[in-house]
């Protein structure tokens, strides 16, 4: 909204300016940056102490060292690998299924207004259903096997991806499309050379939030019955009153989820050659 670049070498400097002036009130950045681990560390120490001093009951909140021990054990006896990989596989399967379907629907809806007018209300209606409410129905229809798990995750992934593909395509600036028309591009070329690349950033936003939801739904999917997976460990911990197992599996969920997100972000960086934001 503000200003416009003029000098032939100014653009990059301005960008750096933006980064620096993010914070508004006096900036203690130099002092505090890199000290983000301070508070978590402090909390861990207090927590450990609280456990040893018996301020909290260990059956309610075991010490971090106990949880670390559990994780280490899991690492040694292969539990971590078996269950972690199972859950990751489910998430990925659901993520791919959901994204592919979302892309197909999204592209059709984004390109053809007729299709959009006809099918979008239905999709929006389905979107209003809190996806967890599907669980009992999916169990009824598809049992508790892998199918229903993957489908549940895919449903969770579908909506954010679909929405961002459609809005990405619909919001491609008219100006770029005009350039395509000046070059006499065929409709297919227009899609391939302009519409798709232009909506890529929006698609990635959708993919990332879809992946996040995928991790949420794998928990739901594994809670509904599983013989393997981090969710299974969670339920085992719950049923055998082992809070260390519960917290250890929560930690694993968080870590693996974060790793998959990082992977997606780095793919995104590679694909967007023109910088991370196109505006």
């Amino acid at each position: 909204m503000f200003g416009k670049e003029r000098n032939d070498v100014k653009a990059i400097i301005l960008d750096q300016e933006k980064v620096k002036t993010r914070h508004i009130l006096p900036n203690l950045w130099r002092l505090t940056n890199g000290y983000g681990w301070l508070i978590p560390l402090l909390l861990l120490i207090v927590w450990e102490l609280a456990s040893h001093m018996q301020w909290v009951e260990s059956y309610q909140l075991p010490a971090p060292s106990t949880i670390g021990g559990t994780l280490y054990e899991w690492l040694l006896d292969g539990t971590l690998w078996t269950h972690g990989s199972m859950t990751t596989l489910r998430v990925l399967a659901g993520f791919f299924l959901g994204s592919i379907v979302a892309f197909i629907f999204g592209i059709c809806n984004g390109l053809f207004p007729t299709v959009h007018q006809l099918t979008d209300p239905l999709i929006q209606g389905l979107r209003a259903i809190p996806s967890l409410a599907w669980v009992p129905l999916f169990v009824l229809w598809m049992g508790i096997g892998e199918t229903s798990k993957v489908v549940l995750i895919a449903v969770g992934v579908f909506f954010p991806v679909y929405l961002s593909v459609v809005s990405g395509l619909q919001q491609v600036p008219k100006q770029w499309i005009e350039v395509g028309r000046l070059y006499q591009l065929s409709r297919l070329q227009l899609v391939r050379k302009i519409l798709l690349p232009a909506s890529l950033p929006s698609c990635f936003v959708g993919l990332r939030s879809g992946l996040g939801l995928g991790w949420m739904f794998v928990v739901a999917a594994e809670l509904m019955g599983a013989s393997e997976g981090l969710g299974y460990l969670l339920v085992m911990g719950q049923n055998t009153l082992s809070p260390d197992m519960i917290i250890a599996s929560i930690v694993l969920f968080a870590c693996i989820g974060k790793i998959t997100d990082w992977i997606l972000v780095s793919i995104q960086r590679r694909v967007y050659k023109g910088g991370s934001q196109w505006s």
Partner: protein
Amino acid sequence: EQTLSKVRLDYAHYSPTSLVLKEFGWLEERLEEQGIKVEWVFSQGSNKSLEFLNSNSIDFGSTAGAAALLSKANGAPIESIYVLSQPEWTALVSTGSITDVSQLKGKKIAATSGTDPYIFLLQALSAQGISLDEVDIVNVQHGDGANALSSGQVDAWAGLDPHMARVEVERGGQLFYRNVDFNTYNLLNVRTAFLQEHPEIVQTVLETYEQARQWVIEHPEETAQLLSEDANIPIEVARIQLERTSFESSVLTSTQNETLRRAGETLLQGNFLKQDVLLDETIDALLNKDVWEGAQ
């Protein structure tokens, strides 16, 4: 001593006495004069009941003995004070394809972890010399396990009444492995803190439970009727469940110690208990035989 405004108990289809007590409101009557209310919470299985106890959501919970032991070994602040029944409520069920425990190798078996059927399954496998790695145990709640078996998603199921009786009657399920000794009693547990703070209320609760037990013994047909209505099951299913349940004794004895020790050893072997757990001491701490010594 703190004043108490309400007592919270669970009720469950696997524990008919709790249904009777809830139905007739004897406890409510007894506590009304003291201005104490009664709250009933539905429990789907021992695991849920223990979860509620540990999170201070209920004061009394009815569970299988082994499930309580597992929880106690992990530090749960509970004690078992009363024998609700000696049920043969669990067995291994299949729809016919499996007739022997030895055939379970490599098969999918549904069970609810942390409950008696689960521990029953562990004991059965261990007796047959099958290790846990050789089977695929799917963790589902009891009711979902019954559905999973009838729709063929698992090969076998460590069942629990009344779901088990229902599968037998309605879907042709077969109990291919039974063993009364591997059932670990239906015990009534109380939170330790509650027992210490309100011993007289505990007595009142136990007295009314005793009243319910007597009623069940005297009115088997009515009990079946009640169970069938509450659990939404046919009357013959309810009858089968009750036939397999003995309400003979309500007092904790050394029999329970032995049963629990056997279950505990299996749990130790399967790594479900930490290796440093002292089994006998834990069992002694769990079974509080001083609270209830039979009807006066």
